[in-house]
């Protein structure tokens, strides 16, 4: 049964991602790339970028949207369910365990020490994802322009991600 092993793989992959993704959805991008483009080769770089865009454009947590989409693409509706359950399971289990120890957990030196190492590492990982994902995409002047314009609009706080993607899709229609 290829499908069953796929479901199992999807669930485990997303569990692993959910377990180490400190910093929310964006922290998952380099992990998903390592898992689904490099290790398992379920997606191409282009497909992955499309999925991130679709996850941003649809309501709900971006991480859940991306997990559901990738799961669906790999193994249909059961795959979507396996991936979504996988990515939320670590959150649910960890929080139910630590919720009782609320104050203790937050002020724990051990937890703070671990997070103080992981947070900056995640930034380095996302930066490397930008370069890896950007290389095959930024192939002409137009693409470079769209990318830079999106970055500048977001960084100056002028426009939120959703309208930026809307603008970019218009530019795609006009320029290509």
């Amino acid at each position, binding site marked *: 049964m290829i499908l069953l092993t796929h479901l199992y793989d999807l669930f485990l992959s997303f569990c692993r991602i*959910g*377990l180490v*993704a*400190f910093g*929310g*959805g964006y922290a998952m*991008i380099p992990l998903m790339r*390592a898992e689904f483009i490099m290790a398992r080769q379920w997606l191409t770089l282009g497909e992955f*970028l*499309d999925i*991130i*865009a*679709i*996850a941003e454009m*649809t*309501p*709900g947590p*971006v*991480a*859940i949207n991306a997990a559901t989409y990738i799961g*669906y*693409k790999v193994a249909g509706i059961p795959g979507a*369910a396996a991936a979504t359950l996988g*990515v*939320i399971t670590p*959150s*649910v289990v960890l*929080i139910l365990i*630590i919720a009782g120890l609320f104050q203790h957990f937050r002020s724990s030196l*051990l937890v*703070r*020490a*671990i*997070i*103080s*190492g*992981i*947070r*900056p*590492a*995640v*930034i*380095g*990982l996302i*930066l490397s994802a930008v370069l890896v*994902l*950007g290389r095959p995409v*930024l192939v002409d002047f137009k693409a*470079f322009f*769209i*990318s830079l314009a*999106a*970055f500048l609009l977001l960084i100056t706080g002028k426009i939120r*991600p*959703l309208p*930026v*993607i809307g603008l970019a*899709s218009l530019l795609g*229609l006009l320029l*290509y």
Partner: protein
Amino acid sequence: MKRPGPPPGKIFLAFLKIGAFTFGGGYAMLPLIRETVVEREKWVSDEGFLDIISLTQSVPGALAVNTAVFIGRQLAGVPGALAATAGAVLPSFLIILAVAAFFIRFSQHPLIIKVFMGIRPAVVGLIAYAVILLGKKVIRARARGNGFTVAVASGAFTLVYWFGLNPFLVIIAAAGAGLLYSFFSGGGDGQ
């Protein structure tokens, strides 16, 4: 529980609405979660909500889901946590199934290809923006020890980008580096 909380069904519906109507995930969802649980339903106090956010950011995973699990648990125990999580996730799940079925079918249509020729570079810009956003947060959170932050960030980048190391290993190594650094520098994360 100190007082009888709302029934899980009500919690489910509140988070269902949040999941169905907020775009952009995580930080974009927090204001709506706050409006619902603090202002409208008065399930959580203002300070309580800030506490919950700071805790949920210390746990791996999607921020919106973490917040839902925690608030649900506080309101109605494990059933509440499951109800809130299911509510926050279900709209995403159903909407993506519909979108994916459509998109996989039409992804080779010339118009869709054009649209995504424009969207792909914008997504690269969006992820670059996330680097700056998270970078600012981390630098601001540390009164001292920014040297360590920069060293770990550039170390992680180098290992993954130039040496092709697995990001999972890098995160585990970074956790170890954080422990060692705090041990030798005598405490916390510099706050």
